[in-house]
């Protein structure tokens, strides 16, 4: 007699809601005013991890909506113009979604190059939008100091993709 195989269904709570909550918590924690020897905590744009990983895991209607919500929350928490980071995340989501068939199953190095390119595109978009809104282009050194820690978050994006890409047999 053949024994039934337990099918693990990974719902949106596992790959959308919990990572989104972790992202919000990490953003708030990193905004703690710590200054040690004149140095502050790094402030990466943490939801960039989700904007890159979610379309690779699987297409979803809920994911871009949550991503837009995360972007709006980030805009409020960082006192940025409402819609700035939400728009940047959605652009990254759409780019990765369009290139999903190419990126699926690629090597880690290829994924990192794409992640770096997506980060560059998002920061370029935010830089230009802020230059138009405020009439003053931001300091490039300050920009690089935020891009670098955001790039260092790639292992989390890779881990998320590895964890959930084949988590649901219906999407294999």
């Amino acid at each position, binding site marked *: 007699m053949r024994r039934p195989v337990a099918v693990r269904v990974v719902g949106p709570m596992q790959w959308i809601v919990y990572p989104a909550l972790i992202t919000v918590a990490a953003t*708030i*924690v990193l*905004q*703690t*005013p*710590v*200054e040690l020897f004149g140095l*502050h905590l790094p*402030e990466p744009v943490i939801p960039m991890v989700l904007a890159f990983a979610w*379309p690779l895991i*699987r*297409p*979803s*209607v809920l*994911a*871009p*909506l949550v*991503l*837009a919500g995360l*972007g*709006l*929350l980030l805009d*409020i*928490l*960082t*006192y*940025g*113009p*409402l*819609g*700035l980071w*939400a*728009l940047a995340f*959605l*652009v990254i*989501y*759409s780019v990765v*979604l369009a290139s*999903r068939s190419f990126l699926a199953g690629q090597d880690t190095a290829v994924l990192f190059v794409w992640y770096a390119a997506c980060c560059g595109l998002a920061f370029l978009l*935010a*830089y230009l*939008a*802020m230059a138009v*809104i*405020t009439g*003053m*282009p*931001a*300091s490039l*050194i*300050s*920009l690089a*100091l*935020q891009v670098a820690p955001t790039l260092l978050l790639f292992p989390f994006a890779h881990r998320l993709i590895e964890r959930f890409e084949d988590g649901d047999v219906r999407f294999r």
Partner: protein
Amino acid sequence: MAFRDGPFENIKVPLVWTAAVTVVVAAVGCVLLLISDARAQNSPYQPVRAGVESVSGPVGGVFAAPVRWFGHASDYVGGYFFAVSENRRLKRELAELQPWRDQAIALKNVNARYEAMLGIRPEPPVAMRTARSISDTRGPFSNARLIDVGSAKGVKVGNPVINEHGLVGRIVGTSPNISRMLLLTDVASRTPVLVDRTDARALLTGDGSGNPRLEFVRGAGSVQAGDRILSSGDGGGFPRGVPIGVAAKGIDGSWRVKLFSDRGAIDYVRVMLFEDFGQLIGPDDLNAPPLAALDTVAAATPAQAAAISDAAARRAAAAATPPAQPAARTPARSPAQSPAQSPAQSPAQPATPPAPSPGGTE
């Protein structure tokens, strides 16, 4: 008939398409938000920001508290280890500052007498509220902090914020217990400043870096490296003379300011409850047409009406009189002839010079 039983029962929309449509709709919404908000103080979303900040502020305060305790503990321990060297340094500084203190007292006395003589109305003392920084936003696009006082303690949008070293920023949003402070380094920050040595005016413009730019510097050679930069008070947003920093040349050749407020951690700050004089009058009143206030003036008394009609009649009579010959008017303008004029023609001229007042300033 249910939808699945209809002619569309076999139509399956790929999940990628639905996701793409969702992305497009959300992106359009974001663009509209971006256009309509732009961090303006009169933004319609300001209550939403205040609501989120009033929730996230206390959470940030929970994380900031252990950091502050650790800082106090390390200061307490460090105070024992560095007590001798600190004592020597403080004695040296005290000896250097003694002449400055005497000079400041003398200058304050002289300045008070000048103000009294010239009838200058000095600025009233500004009330302050001490606050703690509970959240810190850094990065190229925003440099702002949340502080733990709000409108319940009288803090208003536009109030300047200082620490023990100098100007830090200004309030851009308030809720009852939390306020948002925009730092001088923020890319949207603009502060009118002056150069202490030359009194030249400039605009301090943040660009997300640690040292904001000095722009629109007026006058050639009006800034040198090491010049002290103060708030100018132009526009009424800040009181005049608040220390800001020291001018320095940036690596890109532009004038920048090394902020005094960076000499220590911006953990405790003071909010100056400074009333912008622009708030004392409504913008509609400033933009009112000339003489619009005449509508609000009370009706003239009979005596005033008689004086006005008399002056008007005299003016009309003078205009009707043909101009006299210049030769005939010349003696009348001579100082030698002025005593011959009747008192009625020069009522304002006193017969004798006024006696000096006994409480004079000589």
